[in-house]
């Protein structure tokens, strides 16, 4: 009855699995991370402290975690997808409630040894739960509107919670990542068109509920020069840094904009600018190309996968990663408002690094277990 006539790889040995790790992808990830190390080394004025060394340690730890996750049988991820989602959701509620009970706006739970940021965790959990939900869905299912209500809730419940934190950036990311999975699963296109049109139509309403600082960001984006000494300053300085670099760049450790402190947040949100100022158009395009190769590699893993769960999970996670990269780079070039979204694998930051490598671990797990036989439900 199975459509898969052979599933030889369902019980692989450790060595077999290890061989199956996507070493090409690992190489690409290491390349991008190394760009990050160089940039952080430069951001500290040619110093490993305080950023580059810590980032390397975190990357090392994350890499080991990534391998472990990749080795875990995908059937386990499939079985516990909803459970993981539920845990993430509860943590999110806890953070929200704690924030209400007088501890101020908080986005994380302090476990003592690590500050857990549930919204970071939730990005992965939403995609995993959706992949599980659509794993066995037929195209007929996808046309039934009632079939699409549970996934809508899976996406919107955490998005709502994150948005009220308020963390519009992350909320938007979860929403777009989730929508991509629903789209891939084969939901009717009219839903997305309606969604986009409706979204644009409701912009005036959204404008009303935005915090003043958020409105200011949008205004600044629309016309950064209107207040060059204030909020528009970041974008203008970032553009100056990029523009003055030319084709070859100013040279490693010689980015004047970054080192003279004209560039804000150079170790986090504006790290692409720092990199491109020193390495020029060639460096920038090199980094874009590395990103493109990672997207393509993950897309290929997804298409090779023989079960819906793996296909949706791998592609969904890849879309999530790409959204971060694309939005961050567009932001520093003045193509999008400053929304405080880091450049994945490069920006300084522990939680983001760990969650990204967890995501890549899952994508690799999809690759290793691409021929596994998953239960229909």
């Amino acid at each position, binding site marked *: 009855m199975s459509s898969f006539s052979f599933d030889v790889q369902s019980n692989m040995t450790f060595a077999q699995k290890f061989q199956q790790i996507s070493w090409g992808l690992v190489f690409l990830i290491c390349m991008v991370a190394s760009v990050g190390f160089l940039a952080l080394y430069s951001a500290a004025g040619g110093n490993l402290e305080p950023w580059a060394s810590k980032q390397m340690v975190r990357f090392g730890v994350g890499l080991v975690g990534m391998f472990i996750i990749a080795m875990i049988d995908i059937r386990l991820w499939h079985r516990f997808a909803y459970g993981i989602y539920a845990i993430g959701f509860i943590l999110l509620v806890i953070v929200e409630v704690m924030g209400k009970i007088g501890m101020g706006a908080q986005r994380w739970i302090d476990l003592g040894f690590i500050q857990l940021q549930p919204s970071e965790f939730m990005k992965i959990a939403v995609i995993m739960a959706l992949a599980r939900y659509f794993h066995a869905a037929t195209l007929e299912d996808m046309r039934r509107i009632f079939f699409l209500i549970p996934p809508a809730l899976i996406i919107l419940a955490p998005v709502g919670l994150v948005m009220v934190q308020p963390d519009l950036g992350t909320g938007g990311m979860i929403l777009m990542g989730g929508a991509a999975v629903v789209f891939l699963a084969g939901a009717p296109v009219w839903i997305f068109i309606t969604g986009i049109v409706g979204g644009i139509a409701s912009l005036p309403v959204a404008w009303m509920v935005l915090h003043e600082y958020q409105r200011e960001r949008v205004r600044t984006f629309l016309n950064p020069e209107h207040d060059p000494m204030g909020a528009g300053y970041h974008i203008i300085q970032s553009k100056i840094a990029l523009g003055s670099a030319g084709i070859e760049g100013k040279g490693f450790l010689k980015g004047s904009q970054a080192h003279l402190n004209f560039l804000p947040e150079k170790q986090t949100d504006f790290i692409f600018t720092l990199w491109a100022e020193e390495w020029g158009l060639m460096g920038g395009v090199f980094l874009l190309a590395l990103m493109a190769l990672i*997207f393509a590699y993950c897309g290929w893993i997804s298409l090779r996968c023989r079960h819906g769960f793996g296909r949706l999970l791998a592609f969904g996670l890849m879309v999530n990663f790409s959204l971060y990269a694309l939005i961050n780079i567009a932001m520093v070039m003045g193509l999008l408002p400053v929304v405080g979204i880091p450049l994945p694998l490069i920006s300084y930051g522990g939680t983001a690094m760990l969650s990204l490598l967890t995501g890549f671990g899952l994508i690799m797990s999809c690759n290793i277990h691409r021929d596994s036989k998953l239960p229909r439900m």
Partner: protein
Amino acid sequence: MAKKKSSFDRDKDRSLSFTRRAIVLGALQATALTALGARLAWLQIVDGHRYKTMSENNRINVKLLAPSRGLIVDRYGVQIAVNNQNFRVMVIPEQTHNLENALLGLQKLITLSDNQVQALMKQAKKSPKFAPLVVRDNLTWDEVATVEVNLPDLPGVSIDVGEIRSYPMDAATAHLVGYVGAANKGELEDKDPLLKIPGFKVGKTALEKIYDKELRGKAGAAEIEVNVVGREVRELSRRPGEPGQDLVLTIDSELQKYVQSRLSDSRSASAVVMDVHTGGVYAMASVPSFDPNIFTRGLTPEKWEELLSTEGHPLNNKAVGGLYPPGSTFKMVTAMAALELGIINENTSFFCPGHFSLGDTKFHCWKAHGHGRVNVVQALAQSCDTFFYNIAIDIGVDRLAEMSKRFGFGQILGIELTEERAGLVPTRDWKRGAMNKPWYPGESVVGSIGQGYIQTTPLQLAVMTARLVNGGKEVKPRLAEYMGPTKRIQTVWPDLGLKARNLDIVMRGMENVVNQPGGTALGSKITIEGQEMGGKTGTAQVKRITADERARGVRNETLPWHLRHHALFVCYAPIHAPRYACAVVVEHGVGGSSTAAPIGRDIMIMTQQRAPALKDAHIPEGVAPIDKSNIPPRKPQVPEKIPDDDVIVPGKKTEL
């Protein structure tokens, strides 16, 4: 075609649909990446020339300079909080041959612990080599001289002068002015860019905190030319910013010092002297005190622990934050309530046999054999408890509370001190809410003599006295006479709506306390003509001595210190045209008339000698902030951390 597709076909359809849609998304991503690449090329090639020019112009950093903090002076211009020069040793790592050797060399010249050296080495690793490190601050003159002499042998080392807050009157004004310290996380929410300046200090307690915004001033700015690696080449211009406004207090610092020292025989006490018409506080002392300078010069954990564990809580300002039952000093309020309600008049009298019975309960008067027949003036003068027991039930707790609030109890009076507390005036509603119990008549009886649930501060007792003797005006205590050029002290206050005749009756009672035979404070009478005072003693029970203990001869003086009664005294002077009100509370001082009243008398004599109310406060000449024009601009600018933390405001305006 089959009616129902086979599972294989369905999977194939799904797979195809997935692939199609994956290609759509992939194409979108590819488009986005290409667009970004194109945008980058546009910025760097097409617009490159324009941006290159802009980046060249970005060679001038604007650095914020901390303004001088406003001074705090007393009503005559005597300095209470000032800015002293703070000499610091700096070292620029790249200019030394070897940083560690340089630090070890300095260690021979100035006090510098091994731990500090290690911390500096660690810090140096994290900062660029051209960024100066602060080796130590608050150098003594001797240390400055020693380092100066040895500078030729210490390449990379320099001396730099900054400002440090200093409190010349030490412990005498510690509770009034408070102290400054580095801004903590919560205070950083404040958007003032000044707070980002490394080492910038904000007011942490008391006046320094309440008037922080005004004292702080506005940031200055220096334009600094930097070279291509960010090294500062020269300073192009300097705008010193606006120094903070000076704060002139109502305080008379000589009187303040006197009160503080007069109290210091006690283990724990506080006192307030204020003007009954303006509310201006002339002195406010709390003993034990502390030296606020230790907070600005760097507090060691040991010292902090010591301050916290000292008996009498030196860090607390007990004059506004200490809560005590007012005891018999409260009897004026009870008398006013009864008089205003018409329950008694001047001639109403009760017989005091030494106790009062309510049902089966016996309430004792402090005088075991009784006062005989007394009217309200005599009852106040001799502090007869029985008289007040007799009117307590008729007044009732809620009406007594209403009168208490008119006199300033149970509320924040708005003095400019962070530690002020409201205390507690009990009512039926309060008791139901707090204890879920009804009010018992016996509680009204003890409440009438200021015992039971009521909690008051020494400041509130002084305000009560002021309101009794200033013609029933709702005066409130204030510490600021001038903030900058603005007069802050208020001279006209709303009327409390009390009958002048009744106030007069109560004042006669207070007069007799001190000046008539039989008065409880006769021993503290002021005999200087024209400076006589009126007052009221109070003794607040901490532990009840039971009948059994009394029989065994247990006396309050023999109890352990912390169980003894609090001694209170409120007073005003001069008696015929009251101008000054004072409250004294000696914790566990045993007796109001024996301990607190003599202190009150001495304070009142000194106050009238100084007569601060007769000399107007003024904005003194010559308290202008230290003239910095003759201090040379600092040679290297001094980021204490890596340059990333420097405050840079947008640089030279580029043409956009």
